[in-house]
């Protein structure tokens, strides 16, 4: 499923559905970037066919320049082999906290990996991407990326939400009242099992620091659709969900 978010930024990737009808999205974000396309995360191996068809349609003759990995667990990297088979020259950008010999597939060559340090900002083709520590994460060595051109923050697992199938193709501004608190709560509760052991106020204060530091126009979670209509409203909803889950 290809969805246009803003400017040259697109969303692809499918969802997994459980018996009760709740879906977990596994998205890839694609910036066309004037012929040097950038991918944020690589999608799930279970969605390989559709992802590759969508990527080829979206990219045309251009090969992906860089793939940015928020972190390396399977839902974020499962489709790497198919992408590399199609475009062997693609480079990876991972957090400087990653140890490739245990955290990257063994067939990725060392010269294909570039490391980003939190706090750095680099040029990729015609745009700048800056890197920060992932504030809410389930694996050490997770990074968040910010696309300076569109104001999009790629948050990996954080800001994800579970949803009924009817919402699979909807951005927040295509839903009646945006993404409900309950959808965020369901996801954060199941993805971050340590939250009941921590202070909600402290988590919220950390997220506020991230938002205060940059003008975020789009939040792009891997396990949800891009939030592009009303970012402050949805940050407030995630905060409300955190208040329910945390101490």
């Amino acid at each position, binding site marked *: 499923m290809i969805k246009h978010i803003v400017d040259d930024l697109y969303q692809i990737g499918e969802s*997994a559905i*459980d*018996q*009760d009808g*709740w879906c*977990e999205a*596994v998205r890839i974000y694609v910036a066309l970037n004037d012929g040097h396309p950038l991918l944020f995360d690589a999608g*799930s*191996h*279970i969605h390989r066919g559709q992802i590759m068809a969508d990527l080829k349609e979206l990219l045309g003759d251009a090969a992906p320049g860089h793939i940015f990995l928020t972190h*390396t*667990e*399977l*839902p974020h*990297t*499962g489709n790497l082999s198919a992408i590399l088979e199609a475009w062997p020259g693609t480079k990876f950008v991972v957090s*400087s*906290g990653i*140890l*490739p*010999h*245990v*955290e*990257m*597939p*063994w067939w990725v060559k060392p010269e294909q990996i570039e*490391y980003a340090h*939190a*706090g750095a900002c680099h040029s990729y083709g015609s745009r700048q991407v800056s*890197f*920060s*520590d992932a*504030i809410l*994460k*389930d*694996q*050490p060595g997770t990074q968040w990326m910010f696309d300076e051109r569109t104001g999009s923050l790629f948050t990996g697992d954080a800001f994800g939400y579970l949803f009924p199938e009817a919402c699979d193709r909807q951005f927040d501004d295509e839903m009646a009242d945006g993404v409900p608190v309950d959808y965020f709560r369901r996801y954060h509760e*199941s*993805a*971050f*099992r*340590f*939250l009941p*052991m*921590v*202070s909600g106020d*402290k*988590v919220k204060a*950390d997220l506020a*620091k*991230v938002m205060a*530091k940059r003008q975020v126009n789009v939040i792009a979670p891997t396990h949800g659709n891009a939030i592009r209509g009303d970012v402050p409203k949805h940050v407030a909803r995630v905060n409300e969900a955190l208040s329910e889950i*945390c101490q």
Partner: protein
Amino acid sequence: MNVKIYGEGINRIGVRQITPQIYWICHCIGKDAEKHNGGFAADFARINPNIDPTANDINYNSYLFMDEKTLLIDTLGPAQHNTILEVLSDLLGERQLDYLWISHTELPHAANATAIRRQYPDLQLMAVGGHDHYEIHGLEDALLLDYGDELKLGEHEIEIIKPIFLDHALTQWLYERKTGFLCPVDWALMAQNEHQSFLFMDEMEATGYSPERFMHDVSITNCVVFAWLRWADPDQIAEAIDAFFAKYDIRIFAASHTQVIRKDVPAYLAALREAMRRAVTADYNLVY
């Protein structure tokens, strides 16, 4: 030291026997660890002078139980995919691997599950239950365990434990009653230098290591492993640890990224408790 070594560098695995029926299967790089691991020890040592600036190596541990049934804890990471198969053929000989228990689904712990299943097609894969969407983690046909579940291997009785420190949501810990063997997965991650590869913790003491050093190291490294600790309360963390230690009689501390502790266990557990208290209030130096 009685260790059998397979492969070298990023492929290397060392095997040591902890008890007649439990093997420690350990990947660490050794000589070139600084090159492959980005020389992180110097960074840690800048923050805390108690840390050895040459300790650039991290263990990735699997454990094999050889009872009436055989059980492997975790699979090691991608670069060890061939070596782990060689180690298993050597240790198991004609025997089958009955169970492959996955502590959590991150690549350093679970990457070789598919390769191991190819070699032992009848094994039962086991993961923690209570979630949905297992297929995106490659665990769609795993036997799903609940905290409190028990598994008899013969003399050894495994209990599945709810973790008190975890990163990934699909994480479980494991305790074995006969030997007091605890696998607390990522908890207590430490680093070591090239001269300390494959040493049991009691053997580390000959290289200048001690419960005190362990406490300092873990108070730094566990801020990285469990970054959420900065939002926690130090007294609550200490209480959770006390309750855990009161419930389980730990005689072998066999974590995923720590030298195996088989002697003086109470001294190291006390150090670990203090390390976690300190980790909660440490400076995390995050870039927002």
